């Protein structure tokens, strides 16, 4: 018993439509993950419109080169003591806290592995060399970083109220493997951000 003619036409149309949709989808994804090329330069805007936000993807995993430096984020605070004096704390290595949580943990949390690490990527990606924000993302990344630091510091530190914080990154190249014969300067370099004033609104609720 065959399908009635109307149904057969429906199936034929559906086959055509689905085939076109699949072709469009795969072409868009391909152009999205491929390097910039003749076609993607021409249709880049349409591809972006199609792919973002739900089909965005990045598979350059450890490519073209794996990250070859440890980037740690440090922070310090200026606290207001009950006696009215202000005091500056030493630098706290927040990434070392992450690393400590990760060590010996078969199931590291995203809060340790991604939160600060990616927040710093987000910050550097949305700021110029003078640490000036470029657009909305820059502003968002600053507040995000501030809130991550304040989540770890808490509103009070060293017996005083946290009034301002400063963040810096410490980048240390990984020494090349001993058998490679390469010599790379493994000295740590710092990128220090300006002091930021903080208030209660920058303190996420403790978890």
């Amino acid at each position: 018993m065959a399908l009635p003619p109307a149904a057969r036409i429906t199936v034929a149309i559906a086959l055509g439509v689905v085939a076109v949709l699949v072709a469009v989808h795969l072409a868009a994804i391909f152009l999205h993950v491929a390097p910039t090329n003749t076609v993607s330069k021409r249709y880049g805007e349409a591809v972006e419109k199609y792919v973002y936000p739900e089909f965005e993807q990045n598979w350059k995993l450890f490519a073209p080169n794996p990250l070859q430096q440890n980037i740690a984020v440090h922070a310090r605070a200026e606290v207001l003591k009950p006696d009215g004096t202000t005091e500056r704390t030493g630098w706290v290595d927040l990434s070392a806290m992450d690393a400590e949580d990760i060590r010996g943990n078969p199931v590291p949390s995203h809060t340790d592995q991604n939160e600060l690490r990616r927040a710093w990527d987000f910050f550097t990606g949305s700021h110029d060399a003078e640490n000036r924000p470029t657009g909305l993302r820059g502003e968002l990344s600053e507040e995000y970083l501030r809130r991550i630091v304040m989540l770890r510091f808490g509103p009070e530190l060293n017996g005083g109220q946290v009034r301002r914080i400063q963040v810096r990154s410490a980048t240390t190249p990984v020494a090349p493997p001993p058998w490679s014969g390469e010599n790379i300067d493994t000295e740590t370099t710092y990128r220090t951000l300006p002091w930021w004033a903080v208030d209660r609104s920058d303190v996420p609720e403790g978890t």
Partner: protein
Amino acid sequence: MTQSENGGPGSPSPAVPEPRAARDAPEDAPENDTENGRENSGGSAVADAVGQEARRDGSRRDPDPDSVRSLARRFAARADRAVVDGITKVTDRALGPYQTAIVRIGFSFTWLAFLLFEWPNRHELYGPDGPWSWELGRRLIESNHAFTVLLWSDSTVWFEVVYALAVLSSAALLVGWRTRTASVLFMIGVLSLQNRSVFMGDGGDNVIHLMAIYLVLTRCGRVWSLDARRARQRADGAGADPVGVALWALLGAALAVATVRGEVGWFGDDGPVPFVGWATVLWTLWAVHGLWWAVRSVPPAGVGTDGGTGGDTGGADRDTGTGGGTDRKADVRRLMDVLGNVVHNAALLVIMVEVCLIYATAGWYKIQGSRWQDGTAVYYPLHLDYFTPWPALSELLGGSGLMIMVLSYGTVIVQVAFPFTLFNRRVKNVLLAVMMLEHASIAVVLGLPFFSLAMIAADAVFLPTVFLVWLGGRTSRWAGRLRPRPRETADEGKPEEPDGAPDSARTLVG
């Protein structure tokens, strides 16, 4: 195409309705011995029709078999047949039932495990007052239009409800309970949480995000699911499903509220693809699911019907019992079944290509990297503080130059080669095993268990059917040993549901 008519006594003849249960039972002999079901299955109503055309063309006899005309005609006939076979294949059934099921199980398990492990950290990750605050999320999403129900309200209660629903929908999808509905809720859960705090995610989240969308369009619950078991236990493949109906009504009401409040739009930028809003997508899915219920089979007692897998004479049998209106209903049902197969097969293709694109991108970009060229690349991640949960192990692996070199080159070779090996079954399977093994070691060595699990789940779409069926048999035997009880007992556990079912075993899209 002739198979459809004279499928001999030995071949499965889809023209005779089989209970869906029999077709989908994992312990059945495999219907097909290659991964994509190369077995010829005729019987599709559409293909039948097209096939007749093809035969008419191909069977014209030529006086001079060597003339150019005759060659051209034979070529045309062959091309015709290829097209017909292709159409038969994609309309006739949902290909790769075991592969889609394992992908479903893999991703729902990964996401469920992730959500449970992160339970203590859920507020920090996605909560309204985490470091990526509700307000920050709102400002970003205003500019990128990503979908998240978490922005519908900044209350903690709403957040807890959404997180709990994400957990429950993952569990439901894992066991295949109301698979179609669960897959939609699963997608909503994944998108809502990930888009809410996009900077918390990594490559693993990215794969889950994509697959959660694709899975909605596949008939991924046809084997290894509670839906399949329910259909199997109920010999007639039908029966009332008050739970399913209630769920459908409830979700419709929820969607209505969201639509009235203007949380989801019909057209424009806030949808998965341009010009199609989430309201359109979700209402369509809801309506299609309702339609499946409306055209469900209502068999006369005792007559076996196919639960929607395209049995033609079954329809005729039924019609004698239930009268004229069923005729059209059966047609609509068969049409929907065919459309469902088409969408399923398209989504399955997209999933497969997506996996190939992942490996191709990862591999080809590596070729350009100096560290992958000089064979030291793998050394570096082993010395990054964020990816060394077991420093002694990393030290041990990183201690041997030869080992690092082999791993670095091996990784690139395997990733670049994988898409091409799909043309050779044996090589493909070897590479698949190597890649799964590599991901399993990444899980431990770099401390990326959920990323690795997600990648293994994605790889699984290429596992051979024989292996999956064997695995299924082993698993159920193992489970049976754990909890030995006769089948009757299991049946008793199910309440009797006398008539018409919304057929949740069927896919939402058909």
